């Protein structure tokens, strides 16, 4: 490190400035650039947690499942031909004919191909909904929590109203009136008020964080509010936001498949919910065992994906929750008694 030198707090000082005549040798002379900051954040919040994450079997299984669906939606659609009417016999049972591993529906469409080709719009919906939820919640939550006063009162009144309105009926009413076709738009409509609960939760996290001494220090140093929020508050919120990102992904799946199943959203593309609707409405899947696979295949697909998402969020929750984590690390140590342990954890956390 001849020219650039990393100082303990993560900032960099160039050779010139390092020898500058500050009385405190290790104080960085400038603020970090945003890029450095995010590089450090990536290290702190992505790479390091990922290693811990991999130790937790739930997070590991969850990650693998999510990855499998992402692959299905990106690579899978290239490998599997799109379903065509009459490509196989009608209502072939699953696992009989290997050219139709999951059987066919009443029009001879391959069910496996339908499931694969329904994945990309689903992923788009999930991403749109989860991003919208997260961004809205973070903006409203941090603004309200950090600003306080009238801003807080106004935002939270509005927020509480949104939170009280039951999501599904509201989404249905909007969907009936707007008839959205783009998966991105569907994702946003489905989460139209889903962010309110998260915004409340983030606000209370911010209220706790803003009392931390390092935030107070920044405030005393006259650093602007947006900068404090970005640099001091956000990193503390990141784990919480990640867990909730995954949770909102799951609710987008539940709601969108439900709406497609009811036939409220227009059937523009293949969707697992549309498959369920068709097998239920036209296939008469309820009255006979013969069409059961047509109904079951999309249902199993949904359940596995949301199982993966929940496992992932449970695993990450454990990784980020210092109390649970500390308790579990010490729980692995058989030498300590239960009574001592709880006390130790408490001090450990405070320290």
């Amino acid at each position: 490190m001849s020219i650039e030198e990393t100082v303990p707090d993560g900032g960099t000082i160039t050779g010139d400035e390092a020898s500058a005549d500050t009385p405190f040798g290790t104080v960085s002379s400038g603020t970090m650039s945003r890029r450095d900051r995010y590089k450090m954040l990536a290290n702190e919040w992505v790479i390091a947690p990922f290693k811990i994450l991999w130790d937790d079997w739930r997070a590991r299984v969850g990650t693998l499942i999510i990855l499998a669906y992402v692959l299905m939606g990106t690579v899978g659609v290239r490998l599997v031909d799109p379903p065509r009417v009459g490509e196989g016999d009608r209502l072939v049972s699953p696992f009989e004919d290997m050219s139709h591993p999951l059987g066919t529906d009443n029009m001879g469409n391959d069910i496996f191909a339908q499931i694969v080709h329904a994945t990309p719009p689903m992923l788009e919906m999930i991403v749109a909904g989860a991003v919208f939820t997260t961004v809205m919640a973070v903006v409203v939550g941090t603004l309200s929590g950090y600003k306080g006063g009238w801003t807080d009162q106004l935002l939270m009144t509005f927020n509480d109203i949104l939170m009280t309105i039951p999501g599904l009926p509201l989404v249905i009413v909007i969907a009936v009136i707007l008839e959205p076709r783009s998966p991105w738009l569907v994702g946003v409509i489905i989460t139209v008020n889903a962010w309110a609960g998260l915004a409340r939760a983030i606000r209370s996290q911010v209220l706790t964080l803003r009392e931390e001494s390092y935030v107070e220090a920044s405030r005393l140093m006259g650093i602007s509010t947006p900068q404090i929020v970005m640099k001091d508050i956000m990193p503390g919120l990141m784990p919480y936001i990640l867990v909730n990102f995954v949770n909102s992904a799951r609710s987008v799946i539940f709601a969108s498949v439900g709406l497609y199943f009811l036939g409220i959203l227009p059937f523009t593309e293949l969707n697992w919910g549309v498959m369920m609707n068709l097998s239920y409405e036209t296939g008469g899947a309820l009255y006979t065992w013969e069409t059961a696979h047509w109904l079951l295949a999309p249902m199993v697909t949904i359940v596995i994906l949301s199982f993966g998402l929940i496992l992932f969020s449970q695993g990450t929750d454990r990784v980020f929750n210092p109390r649970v984590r500390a308790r579990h690390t010490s729980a692995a140590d058989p030498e300590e008694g239960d009574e001592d342990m709880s006390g130790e954890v408490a001090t450990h956390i405070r320290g």
Partner: protein
Amino acid sequence: MINNYYIERTAQAVFTVFAVVTMTFGMIRLMPGGPVSYIRSQLVQQQGNQVDMEQVNALVEVYTNVAPDEPLYIQYIDYMAALLQGDLGVSMFYNDPVTEILASAAPWTVFVMSISLVLTFGLGITLGAVMAYIEGSRFDVSTTLVSIFLNSIPYYVMAIILVYVLGYQFNWFPTGGRISSDVATGMNLAFLQSAFYHAALPIASLVITGFGIQALAMRGNSIRVLGEDYIRVARLRGLPPHDIALRYVGRNAILPMYTGMMIAIGFMFGGSVILEEIFAYPGIGYYMFRGIMARDYPLMMGAFLIITIAVVVGIYVADLTYGKLDPRAGSGGGNREAY
């Protein structure tokens, strides 16, 4: 100032209803291709071209309580006034007053949802507490896994499976309706039996898919509380274990569950649209779905309003009991960060 808390909550509940009603009005009136123009085109279609516009407007007003030829603010006042008198317009599909249809449906939805809510939380809280006490045991690990798995099943998928297997294939449970046709309405045993029998599958699909996440939340809360200093102190003071379990751990672990409860109220009542359709159970959600399918806007918006009001009331009640349980919420500082 304990009273402040209640006044604030009441005002908030009333204001929420007011805001939702205003929003509904906006949707009915202002959305392009919304109900008013739809009804107008329907009427024009039915009666041919020589239809009198004034007559059409009058009919639109009968159905939606919105008079399209008046200025907007008068429309709004009329709409509000009609609502305050309990008039939600007339259903175009059933040709009955919406209020009448929904008033007969509402008790059934409330019946199914409140039982589901109580069972979900009763089961979740009990199981979660037990899991936390024997944390790390085989029971805990397997229950956690089962909870996660059940929670990853959407309630309507569970509903379809139940109605498919237990309803259509084995004929163990009814596949539709509120009560058997041969049972007289009234508070007798046969009526109650029939009502529970018909509500069993809808309730089961909500409870089976819902209790897991509550159990996990309760488990997490209890584990956290068990690690607190005051529990240690209580143990050192030699308090009997069941006292600690109920008064110290139980109470503090249940309080954060209220957030989940409020979300669950909205989730369950909202979910009635899908659930009641699958079980052909004529509650509010069922009629809302009928309204959507028939583009019957008065019925659809009326059902939306009633569901919302039910949720607002549910949350309001939960809020008030929360204030009773948690002294911090009722006393001055009522900022309620636990939300």
